[in-house]
């Protein structure tokens, strides 16, 4: 197990370097000028040249290595070791944002990532509670009314786009019923609607995974044995069958959590939440190079780490796995 963790952690920088290179190539080839405001007054050509020079935007090779030098912490280490009178503000320096000129990518990630984590985790918790319950209910009596109802709800949860669900919820609760508020973030109450909207597709998928797994497990021999021994049905379902049926859910949970935390662009827009998902889309739209690179690397890192955490949990839940 320790070996696995170490191996994965060694792989991490290699994976990130590959992702960095691919992202760089894609982002660099985006059409358009990175440093200008598309709707406003254009700076004189001489000023535009200065802008490009400032960020090495006139030379892809320099840009690639200069940025690599900054984000890996090498620049920080170098400046610290040589005491050149220049301060590196961050160990891993993701650079400035072209669009939000007063903020650098580190600050933007620092302010938006916690919001995304809160939103994503709330959504995953809701999805787990709702999905597991629905899955178990469905599996106990397959093809019953309760099962069909949960399947139908799950289907809707997966198929309805979140901007529809989100907008309907906004109009239903804050606007018509006066419960909660629009475009607020901070209080527990503000979190419920967006988290619930975000959780729906995850809940639906978890419900289906659980139901399928449970139906298989409930027909397994050990369940019959446990029942024959006289173990109560409730205990058989919740303790024995669920534990095994939960494994596919658990492996889904890794990427799902990463996606819930970063892929919430639509939810963030509809509910006006200052999270990180919007930056993926906005940065690409605005060719905000440093931002594209920064958020992509953070997301990639999170994906790798969550998969690792899930693998560790997997072994803990099911010690048979090596």
């Amino acid at each position: 197990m320790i070996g696995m963790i170490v191996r994965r952690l060694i792989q991490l920088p290699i994976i990130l370097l590959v992702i960095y290179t691919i992202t760089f190539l894609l982002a660099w080839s985006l059409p358009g000028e990175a440093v200008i405001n598309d709707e406003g007054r254009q700076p004189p050509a001489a000023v535009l040249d200065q802008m490009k020079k400032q960020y090495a935007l006139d030379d892809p090779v320099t840009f690639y290595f200069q940025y690599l030098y900054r984000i890996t912490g090498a620049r920080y280490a170098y400046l610290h070791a040589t005491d050149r009178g220049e301060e590196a503000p961050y160990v891993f320096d993701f650079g400035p944002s072209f669009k939000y000129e007063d903020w650098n990518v580190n600050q933007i990630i620092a302010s938006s990532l916690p919001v995304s984590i809160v939103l994503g985790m709330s959504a995953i918790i809701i999805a787990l509670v709702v999905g597991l319950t629905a899955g178990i209910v469905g599996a106990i009596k397959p093809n019953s009314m309760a099962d069909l109802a949960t399947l139908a709800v799950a289907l809707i949860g997966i198929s309805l786009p979140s901007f529809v669900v989100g907008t309907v919820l906004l109009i239903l609760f804050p606007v018509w019923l006066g419960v909660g508020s629009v475009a607020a973030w901070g209080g527990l109450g503000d979190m419920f609607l967006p988290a619930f909207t975000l959780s729906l597709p995850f809940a639906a998928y978890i419900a289906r995974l659980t139901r399928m797994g449970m139906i298989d497990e409930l027909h397994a021999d050990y369940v019959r044995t446990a029942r024959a021994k006289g173990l109560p049905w409730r205990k058989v379902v919740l303790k024995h069958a669920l534990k095994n049926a939960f494994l596919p859910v658990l492996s889904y949970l890794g990427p799902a959590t990463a996606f819930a935390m970063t892929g919430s662009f639509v939810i963030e827009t509809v509910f006006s939440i200052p999270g990180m998902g919007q930056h993926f889309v906005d940065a690409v739209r605005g060719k905000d190079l440093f931002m594209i690179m920064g958020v992509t690397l953070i997301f990639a890192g999170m994906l790798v780490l969550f998969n690792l955490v899930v693998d560790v949990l997997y072994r803990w839940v099911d010690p048979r796995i090596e």
Partner: protein
Amino acid sequence: MGKVAAILGLLVASLAVLVLSDRSLPPAELTVINRSEFNTLDPQRMSYLHDLRLAYSIYEPLVRWDNESPDFAIVPAAAERWEAHDDGRTYTFFLREDARWSNGEPVTAHDFVYSWRRGMLPDTVADYSSFFMHIDGAQAFFDHRTRKLETYAELEPWRKAARYGGDADVDSAESFAALPGAAQRDLLQRAAENLYQESLDFFAENVGLEAVDDTTLRVRTAKRIAYFLDLAAFGVYCPVNPDLVNSYRRINPDSGRIEQSFDWTKPPKLVTNGPYVPVAWRFKREMFLEENPHYWNKPAVKSKTVKIIPINDPNTSVLAFETGAANWNSDVTVDYVADMLEAKDRGEYEWIHAFSTFGTYFWSFNCTPTLAGGQPNPFHDAAVRRAFTLAVDKREIAENVKRSGEKPARVFVPPGSIPGFDNPEGLPFDPTRARAELRAAGWFDRDGDGVPDNASGTPFPVVEMLYSTGSYHDDIALAMGSMWEEHLGVKVRLIAKELKIYKDNLKSQNYMVARGGWFGDYGDPTTFLDLHRTGDGNNDRGYSDPDFDRMMDAAALEQNPEERMRLLAEAERYTMEETLPILPIWHYNYYYLYKPPYDAEGRPQVGGLRGISDHPRLVQYLWKLDVIDEAEAAAMPPRSPRDADEPSPAMPVRTGAAPRPAPPAADEGAAS
């Protein structure tokens, strides 16, 4: 189950920690919804409308506009008075003694010199740096510094040190290499500082900007410009606090450039000289302004605290306003604005307000001789551009396609927005004349297939209409295209691109016809007309006409203001009736949501917003905005419904407090 529950429990616990560590800011006296987060609070680098609006409320330029006066008069701000000298190029500003930064220090003439110089420096890379080039010597200073930086960056380190380091012993690569590392770096740093000092000396000698003493600022412009005071009131001319900005900048010893960290714009570090000072700024969440405790004119500040919330999604921002999250929604862009305005006309919805603005929506013609593919460009011929303009029924587009009260446009400069400027007529909607123009240009149907052909029998190329996705432009393109097909017989193809690609194509003249738009910056027709000058950075049409350039030059030299306006009006007539680099469609409207100060019966309303300016220049001062509370409502006299400040249903949009009525552009399309 136990282990599954443990995993869930762990999630919940870590979540709780995050949630509890995050609290909202308290409510403010005035809450404003903006459409997007501020891009920068550094006035010299601003270029977005919402940034500039904030600049007028947290900073104070030398002079500002009175946004309630019909002629948008220039009034004293940080300067209590000024003198314009007889040469028409020199201005002396006398700063008020009690002007203070929010840290209590006096605002001096030196602060303005520092800030304006910052706007001229190539190191600042400001979008609006060209605005400072009106000052005498500024362009030379920009060029000088640019050249110096380029030469310096290419020097080997020892040469940098030898030439600028000021150490006589270092005169070769060897003597430099012999120094210890720290000494080398010190020397390079000194070299870069000296390079900057050299630029400052150049500035002092050559640029017409000087602090005579702490409260006297003298400015000399490069040419006589009639609108210099208007420029001085513009946001990028606001001062920054030199001590604050200097403590966040460093001179790069390798490139010689000044490198800025913009952390100084983050409260509580930020020091401003305007009515408000930001005390909290949470990215994409909210900004909190408090009254500047040292502001000289505190009684003018109506709301003592202001909160600004950015909401990107148009629909969410309307819902947020309607559920009471804010007193003013400053930018409504939902596609049901037209329905809201209709509901208002029926008396069912009182919150939406439309204002005509200082901007024009148009489509650009590519005026270059050949298209990107190398084939000849039919739109190079002004007669073809005239024909295509005459064939568009703008009233139909404004009233039945856009449907939100915009005034159809025949000209570029919004009528009534600039005192003393008489717009020309422009071209009407006249399909017959359009066909005649096209025929005169050599294009008519020679082979009977309905499509016009030229003398060699080549049919008119398919007209490609380029626009950016995600807005109303596709509707407009469809309407315009069908008018061209119907009246001129040409074939039309719509090309929708992402904003960046659209912009790229526009810049490289890789298009035939493309959507465009422009908002003026200062109260002079040149803020629009300069766009047509040969080689202007915003001339995306590749329009180059020596006659027009000559007209603009003649106007620039004209001493008599009335004659100057006449020359500019002639230049606009020339472009709007003869050469048509652009096809104006409508003058933009801006939409706000706020509760009006008086209800339909003319009674004052609690929660109503006072102080919104309806002038088309659309400068809103946050410190003038006042939410009516119960005491104020009780004290306000009721108003008869007849002179309520709301426009009558027949005329949904006000023309602003224009000094004269709008020209007869309103009957656009009468020719049909």
